[in-house]
């Protein structure tokens, strides 16, 4: 049943502009014709004049801030710019080509594709799950309110909130505090992350492979294993003044930080003020095989009393080195786009849920009950009854999200501010538009704007068609 039939246009609910337009079309068209039949009251011409009068402000507004800018943008997009934003020359479609040839704006196009492929589907699914589940619990209104609440927060505030969650330092970022907490529960940390050999004279290797001496040492002679890089201003409690080794049975030696506060020690010799590295694992290696392991004392001394014959290389294994796990770089190059999508999901999942839940409430109960009486499982009821009856609502949610996602700007822009050098990886078209506009590159910015409009048009057409179908 159409809103416009019989009733004047004022009865149309403010659902959306397309509904209003539809109502308007019918009033002035078919509906109006019917009212040509003689009736008491004003002449039809007068009413039409009045209608235009009332419409005039809207038409002027639309013309001034929608039509004119749109046409001007299309025209402007065909011209190139001087550095100060004046028109340089007519370039045809060159600005459009530039969007797809420049690697950075191409990245933005790609990101828009990722967004449109992943986000509307994901949010619709999550919204559907929430809607189905909230129907089955008590206090569902409370649950729905909480889920819907992110919609009431400005995207700017949401972005800032998540910029704190995604901060790198675990002391500030919730994401990494959790990640590190979980990680450190399952693996131990390295005692000397920043310690390394001063040069390549004694050791070869890397923090990942451990450091192995070039030389093999025979039993009886004390071995000096100098390393550097200990934090001298806050040395760990496992370290103490190093003691030069004395010769004894087997292989013995000292592993110490060959650098004292203020400098000045003799390289390769144990000096006063240089600290032994206690708790350092030391391995004796023969022919590439680890034959014995020990751990140093806090003055750096270690010994293998049982290795009395032959000569051995010594290795400081990788377990002692390597940086501790610092969490994930949420806003680094590889995770930034998914991380921002999560924020968007957080904002819009509640919106999708509310719309879908409203659609579910409209499904006739008797159909569901009939199916259950016939012995259908809950899953079958959902698959065969709920889902098909809900399809129109799901389409509305999906298309609305698709339009929003194509134009996504705010959350991306805000999170880019804290992402540092990897921020550009997350660019979307709206962000590049804004940036080019800021650089007074109006031709390029206009081209991006027109492209965005073109991308949104199919979704709009789909929506308008659906509205029309609903009304007939």
């Amino acid at each position, binding site marked *: 049943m159409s809103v416009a039939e019989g009733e004047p246009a004022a009865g149309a609910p403010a659902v959306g502009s397309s509904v209003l337009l539809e109502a308007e079309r019918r009033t002035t068209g078919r509906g109006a014709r019917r009212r040509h039949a003689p009736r008491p009251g004003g002449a039809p011409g007068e009413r039409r004049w009045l209608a235009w009068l009332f419409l005039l402000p809207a038409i002027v507004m639309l013309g001034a801030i929608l039509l004119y800018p749109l046409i001007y943008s299309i025209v402007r997009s065909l011209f190139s710019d001087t550095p100060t934003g004046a028109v340089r020359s007519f370039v045809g479609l060159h600005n459009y080509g*530039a969007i797809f040839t420049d690697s950075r704006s191409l990245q933005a196009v790609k990101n828009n594709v990722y967004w449109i492929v992943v986000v509307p589907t994901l949010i619709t699914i999550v919204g559907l799950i929430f809607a189905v589940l909230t129907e089955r619990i008590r206090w569902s209104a409370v649950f729905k309110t909480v889920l819907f609440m992110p919609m009431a927060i400005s995207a700017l505030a949401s972005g800032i909130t998540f910029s704190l969650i995604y901060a790198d330092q675990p002391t500030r970022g919730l994401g990494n505090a959790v990640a590190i907490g979980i990680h450190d529960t399952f693996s131990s940390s390295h005692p000397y992350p920043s310690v390394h050999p001063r040069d390549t004279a004694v050791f070869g290797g890397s923090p990942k492979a451990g450091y192995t001496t070039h030389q093999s040492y025979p039993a009886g002679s004390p071995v000096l294993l100098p390393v550097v890089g200990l934090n001298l201003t806050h040395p760990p409690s496992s370290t103490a003044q190093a003691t030069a080794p004395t010769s004894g049975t087997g292989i013995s030696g000292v592993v110490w930080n060959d650098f004292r506060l203020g*400098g000045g020690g003799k390289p390769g010799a144990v000096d006063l003020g240089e600290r032994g590295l206690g708790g350092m694992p030391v391995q004796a290696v023969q022919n590439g095989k680890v034959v014995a392991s020990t751990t140093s004392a806090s003055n750096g001394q270690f010994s293998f009393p049982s290795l009395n014959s032959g000569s051995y290389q010594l290795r400081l294994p990788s377990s002692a080195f390597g940086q501790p796990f610092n969490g994930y770089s949420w806003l*680094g190059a590889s995770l930034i786009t998914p991380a921002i999508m999560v924020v968007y999901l957080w904002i819009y999942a509640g919106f999708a849920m509310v719309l879908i839940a409203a659609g579910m409430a409209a499904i006739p109960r008797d159909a569901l009950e009939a199916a259950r009486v016939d012995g259908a499982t809950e899953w079958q009821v959902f698959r065969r009854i709920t889902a098909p009856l809900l399809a129109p609502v799901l389409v509305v949610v999906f298309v609305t999200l698709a339009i929003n996602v194509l134009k996504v700007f705010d959350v991306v822009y805000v999170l880019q501010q804290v992402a540092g050098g990897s921020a*550009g990886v997350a660019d979307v078209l709206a962000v590049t538009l804004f*940036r080019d506009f*800021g650089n007074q590159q109006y031709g390029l910015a206009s081209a991006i704007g027109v492209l965005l409009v073109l991308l949104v048009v199919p979704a709009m057409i789909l929506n308008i068609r659906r509205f029309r179908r609903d009304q007939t």
Partner: protein
Amino acid sequence: MNRRRISLTAVAAITAVTAAACGGSSSGSSASKSTPSSGSSTAALGHFNGASFTILGQWTGAEQTAFQSVINGFDKLTGATGQYSAAAGGDEASVLGAKVNGGNPPDVAFVSLPGALQQYAKAGKLIALNSAAQQAVSTNYSTEWVTLGSYNGKLYGVPFDASNKSTVWYNTKLFSNAGISGTPTDWTSFMKDAQTLHDSGVSTPISVGGGDGWTLTDWFENVYLRTAGTAMYDKLTQHQIKWTDPSVTKALTTLKQVWGNHNLIGSPSSALKVPFTGSVDNTFKANPSSGIVYEASFVATTITGDKLPAKVGDTAKFFPFPSVDGSQPTLEAAGDFAVAFSNKPVVQAFLQYVASPAAAKLLVSATGSGFISANKNLPNTAYPDATLAALAQQLVSVGDNFRFDMSDQAPAAFGGTPNKGEWADLQSFLGNGNVSAAQQKLEHDAAAAYGG
């Protein structure tokens, strides 16, 4: 890149439109108060009792106070009234652009981009300096500054404040912990001292603020100035040579000796997360993780502004950017130029005054503003502390052997935008160390921004 332009250019572009719309009616109203002051120095400038003019700048806070004292000095001498307003949103380039395009320019503007000065001069928007003002500029500033303020042989801009962008700041405590006496003067010893810092337990000896692309352009410009020389620097600035030029290869390769060394700057992906202020914090906070940070003279203001425990001139000191392969002392500078958009006589007198050592003295002597001046007739004793005096001394003593910030002279789309152009390309280079790929991208972006 000028520190003040790190604010979001685009946001300011929006506010610029608003500012242009509401900034129209400020001039010409308050022309009644000041009385003429007696004194011999007014003779040179003339008397402008009751005359009023508008000034657009980007200074706020302590800097605004210092600049206001210069205006007051002029007002007192001539009886005129200078009305200063700071650009909304801090992005003066956009605000000024909107005002000029809207036909409502200020009488005087302070621009930090010589490129903008030349654009406006080319478009016929600027009034050239009269002979008295020209005379004042050429007596007080070296030829290179005069060239920067000129277009087509005519002088339009008066150099005012300056920043010294060839200063490497270091934490003296960490240097003495590591037993480093003295400061490095060449690239090799710079790297050696940084390695020594690393061995002494400083995890990332040099904090590179790669989160802000402009810090990287400053690194590059300093190295390029030293490996390629001033003549090539000028060519690259004008994009007369391509970024694929071998001289750029050499500079990037030199830069990579530091940027590619994890012992010196830590992991590049971490460095890319550190903004400029973060890199200063890393070096001068309570438990510093870095001992060295390169950036301009305004690091000093950042240390005091961020209330870091280090004391400028005591535990936070600077040394000149090290020479590369025996290069002569040279310097990268930046600064603001006063330009006239109106032909009121009082404006010419003001520009003449701005060029004088008296105005420079008023500007720099205010405590906390951190201003320095390249005015060569300004005595060093005018500065409130020794560090500022040393920074200025370095700036003046190089004479003409300095160059203005290259990215500040490039179109904003190349040299002045986050996540775009040179900023983004050097960030990629910091991340991956690929010299030839970086050069290709830089050339591609430069070609697009400089236009045909």
